C-alpha cells in the first residue's frame, strides 16, 4: 500500500489562495483609516501634523495601549479581565502608600523608596495570579471574578488612601512619566518595546502561537500537548503587570495617584481591541491590529479636541465615536464582530 504515501497530484485551487491573501492583509485593514484620519486632521487644523501634536497623541494613548496589549492577549486566549482598570490605580497607590509616611497619606510602613517599582510589579503579579487561581483552579466564571476584582481593588484603593490623591510620588515614577529618550517620551518607548516584543512572541514563538490554539479550541490545544492552564495563567499575570506599568506611567506623568486613577478605561480598552480586530470569542486578532485600534481612537479624540469641542461634549461624543469606529471597522475589514 504505497498509494497513500505518494505525493498529491491535485494542483492548488485558486479560490482558496485568493481568500487567503485577503486574510493575510486583514491586519493592515485599519492603516488606510488611520492615514485618512491624519489627512482629515491636517485639513481641519494646521498644527495637526506637527511632531509636537503627534507625540502628544502617542503619549496620551501610551497608557491605554498597554492595557489594550494585555487585554488583547487575554481575549485571544479566550478570557477577559475587567479588573485591569482598577489595577492601574491600586498598584501604584498601594506601593506608594507602603513607602510614604502617614503624614502624606501613607501607611507608615516605611519601605525604602527604591522598592517602589519592584513592589508595584509584584502587586501586578499577585493580582493576575489571584485572578488566574480563581478562574482556572477554583473554576469560577472569568467575567464575574474579574468584575468582582474590579470593584474590590477600587474599593481597596479608596480605603487605603481614604479617598485622597497621593502626591508624594517616588522619583523613579516621576522619571519614567516625564523623561524623554531620543526626543520621544519614555512612555512611548516603553509601549513600542512592549508591542514589539508582544508582536514577535505571538507570531514567532511557539508559546505565543499557543494563545491562538487555546482561544480557538482549548480541547484541541490540550490534546496537542499545550499546557493550557499554565499559558492562560501566564497571560493573565502579564496582563495585570502591563496594567501596572500603565499605572506607573500615568502616576509619573500626572505626579500623583488619584483615587479614581484608571476609572472608566476598561470601556476604551475593549473598544480599541474590538476595533483592532480582536474577537471577544477568542482565538482571533493580532496585536498590531489592536495597536491600530488604539491609534485610531487617539487620532479621533485629538481631532475633536483641536476642533474645540467642549469638554462637556467630548465625553458624550467619545461614546458615539467608538460606535462609529466600530461601524467603520466592520466595513473596512469586511468581518462581523462577535
Amino acid at each position, binding site marked *: 500500500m504505497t498509494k*497513500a*504515501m505518494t505525493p498529491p497530484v491535485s494542483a492548488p485551487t*485558486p479560490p482558496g489562495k485568493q481568500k487567503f491573501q485577503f486574510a493575510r492583509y486583514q491586519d493592515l485593514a485599519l492603516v488606510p483609516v488611520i492615514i485618512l484620519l491624519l489627512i482629515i486632521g491636517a485639513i481641519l487644523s494646521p498644527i495637526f501634523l506637527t511632531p509636537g501634536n503627534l507625540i502628544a497623541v502617542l503619549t496620551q494613548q501610551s497608557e491605554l495601549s498597554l492595557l489594550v496589549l494585555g487585554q488583547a492577549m487575554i481575549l485571544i486566549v479566550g478570557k477577559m479581565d475587567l479588573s485591569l482598570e482598577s489595577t492601574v490605580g491600586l498598584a501604584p497607590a498601594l506601593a506608594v502608600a507602603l513607602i510614604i509616611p502617614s503624614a502624606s497619606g501613607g501607611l507608615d510602613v516605611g519601605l525604602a523608596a527604591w522598592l517602589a517599582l519592584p513592589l508595584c510589579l509584584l502587586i501586578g503579579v499577585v493580582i493576575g495570579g489571584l485572578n488566574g487561581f480563581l478562574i482556572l483552579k477554583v473554576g469560577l466564571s472569568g467575567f464575574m471574578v474579574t468584575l468582582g476584582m474590579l470593584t474590590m481593588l477600587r474599593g481597596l484603593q479608596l480605603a487605603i488612601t481614604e479617598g485622597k490623591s497621593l502626591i508624594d510620588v517616588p522619583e523613579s515614577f516621576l522619571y519614567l512619566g516625564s523623561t524623554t529618550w531620543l526626543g520621544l517620551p519614555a512612555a512611548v518607548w516603553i509601549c513600542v518595546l512592549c508591542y514589539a516584543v508582544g508582536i514577535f512572541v505571538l507570531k514567532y514563538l511557539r508559546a505565543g502561537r499557543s494563545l*491562538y*490554539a487555546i482561544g480557538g479550541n482549548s480541547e484541541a490545544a*490540550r*490534546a*496537542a500537548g499545550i499546557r493550557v492552564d499554565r499559558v492562560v495563567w501566564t497571560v493573565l499575570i502579564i496582563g495585570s503587570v502591563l496594567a501596572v506599568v500603565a499605572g506607573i506611567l500615568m502616576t509619573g506623568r500626572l505626579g500623583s495617584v488619584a483615587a479614581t486613577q484608571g476609572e472608566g478605561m476598561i470601556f476604551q480598552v475593549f473598544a480599541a481591541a474590538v476595533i483592532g480586530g480582536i474577537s471577544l470569542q477568542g482565538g482571533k486578532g493580532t496585536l498590531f491590529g489592536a495597536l491600530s485600534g488604539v491609534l485610531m481612537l487617539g487620532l479621533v479624540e485629538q481631532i475633536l479636541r483641536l476642533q474645540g469641542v467642549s469638554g462637556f461634549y467630548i465625553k458624550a461624543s467619545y461614546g458615539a465615536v467608538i460606535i462609529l469606529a466600530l461601524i467603520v471597522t466592520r466595513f473596512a475589514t469586511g468581518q462581523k464582530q462577535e
Partner: protein
Amino acid sequence: MTDFASVGGADNLAAAARGVTKRFGRTLALDDVGIEIRAGESHALVGRNGAGKSTLVSVLTGMQLPDAGEVSFFGEPAPSVADRAAWRRHVACVYQKSTVVPELSVAENLFINRQDLGGGMISWKKLRAEASSLLETYDVAVHPDSLVSTLTVEQRQLVEIARALSIGSRFVILDEPTAQLDGPAIERLFDRMRSLQDKGVTFLFISHHLQEVYEVCQTVTVYRDARHIVTAPVAEMSKPDLIEAMTGEAGGLNVPSGDDRPSSTDEVLAVSSLSGDHFSDVSLAATRGEVIGLAGSASSGKHEFAETIYGLRKPSAGTISVNGSAVRGGDVPAALKAGIGCVPRDRHHQGLVLDLSIAENATMSTAHAFVWPSAQRSAGSTAIASYDVKAAGPDQPVSDLSGGNQQKVVMARALAGDPSVLVLINPTAGVDVKSKESLLGVVDAQARRGKAAIVVSDELDDLRVCDRVLVMFHGSVVREFSRGWRDQELIAAIEGMSSE
C-alpha cells in the same frame, strides 16, 4: 428507476429535485443533479466528502436556493425560500450537529417557537401534556421536563425526529445519524425507521457506512464530484459496484490488510495493570511494527483507556512505558516527549483549531520555541504531500477542508514528532471511502517503518489493518482475536454476547 419516473411523480414521490445546479463562488457544488424519493421508502444518498450531499440537503430543506432547477414535494412545487414554516411542514432534517437548545426542556424544544400552541400565551401545563402525548405517540422514552442537555445522543435524535413529525412533515432527512451512536443504538434507530416507514414516513438517509445502506434502505442514489451518478434499488447494487460508483474506480475499498508486515519482538509500548476512568487493570504490550485494534461499545472504556495512554486522562493505578522508560500519567507533553502520538476522538472537539492554518495545526505538537513562518509553511506542505491532503496550500484554514482532509491533518500532527507509538481513536470517523483508504494506508505504512499503533474503533474496516484485536467490555479486555477473525464473531464480542 424508469418505472416511477414515467409516472411523473404526481402522487408517489415524496420529494423530487430536478436539474439542480448550485455554485459557491467558483466551486460548482451541484451540477445539474436530480433525485426522486418515492413516498414510504428509505432512500440512501451516498458519496464521498465533497460530492454535493450536504448542498443537496440544504436545497431540499430550503436553506439554499439553487441557481437552477426545481424542487417539489408530493408533486407540488416547493414553497418560497422565505416561507420557513411551509418548508418545515414538507421536510425535516436531523443534522449531525444538533438543532435543539440544550438548556431548555424536552417539551419546550418539541414546540420551540410555537410554545403557545396557538393560544397566544404559554400554558406550561398544556405544553407538557402535549409533549407527553407526542413522545408517547412516537414511543420516545424521555421525560418532557428533562433538559435536552441531559439526554444521550440517541434520545436527542429521537426528540428531533418526533419534533419534525409533529410539525406535519412526512419526509425526514437523516444526515449521518449513526456517526455518534454505538451498535445497539444504531439497531434501535433502524427499527424505529422501519416502523415509521410502515406508517408512511419517507426517509432520506445519508451515511458513510455502506453496510447501513444495505440494512435499512430500499433505493440508493450516488453522487460524485457534484454530479448524479446512479440511482438504483439497493438489492441490485453490490457493494463493490456501489463503491465503484462513489469513487469512479473499480475494486471496492482497498484497505491494506498488512498480513505481510514484518513482525518483531522488540517491545515498544508496555501498559501494565492500568486503571482509570471507566476501565480497570488493563495490560497491553505492543512490539515494533505491530498494530493492535481496540474494539468495544461506547461504554466499554476503550476511549478512556486510549486517552489515558496519551495523557489526556490521569490513570488511578498502573504504569505506561515506551521503549522501557516510564511515562508520567495524565500529562500530554510528557507522552509526546516519550514518543506517543495521538489522533484524538473527535476532530472538531479535540483535534483541530478550525480557524488556524493547515501548517499551524499540523505542527502544533512539535513546534520548537521559535516558529519561523517559512519553516512552518514548508512543514505544512510536507504534510499535505505526505498524507495526500486535498488543499490549496499550507496557509489554508482547516475549516475550509472536507472531513476526510481534516482528519489527514490530525493524522499529520500525530505523526509530526516521529513518535514510536501511535494512538488512533476513531481515525476514520465521518470520512469518505477514499480518505479512509488513504488514512489506513498511512497506518500500515507507519507500522512497516517500525511504529507500534493502537487503533480504537468500531469500524471493521479499521480493525482489518490490525495484527490483533482486543475487545473491551465494561472496562476490561474480554477477548482477543488474531488475524482472520469473522465479522459476526467480533461483533458478538463487542456487544458482550461472547460465548466464553
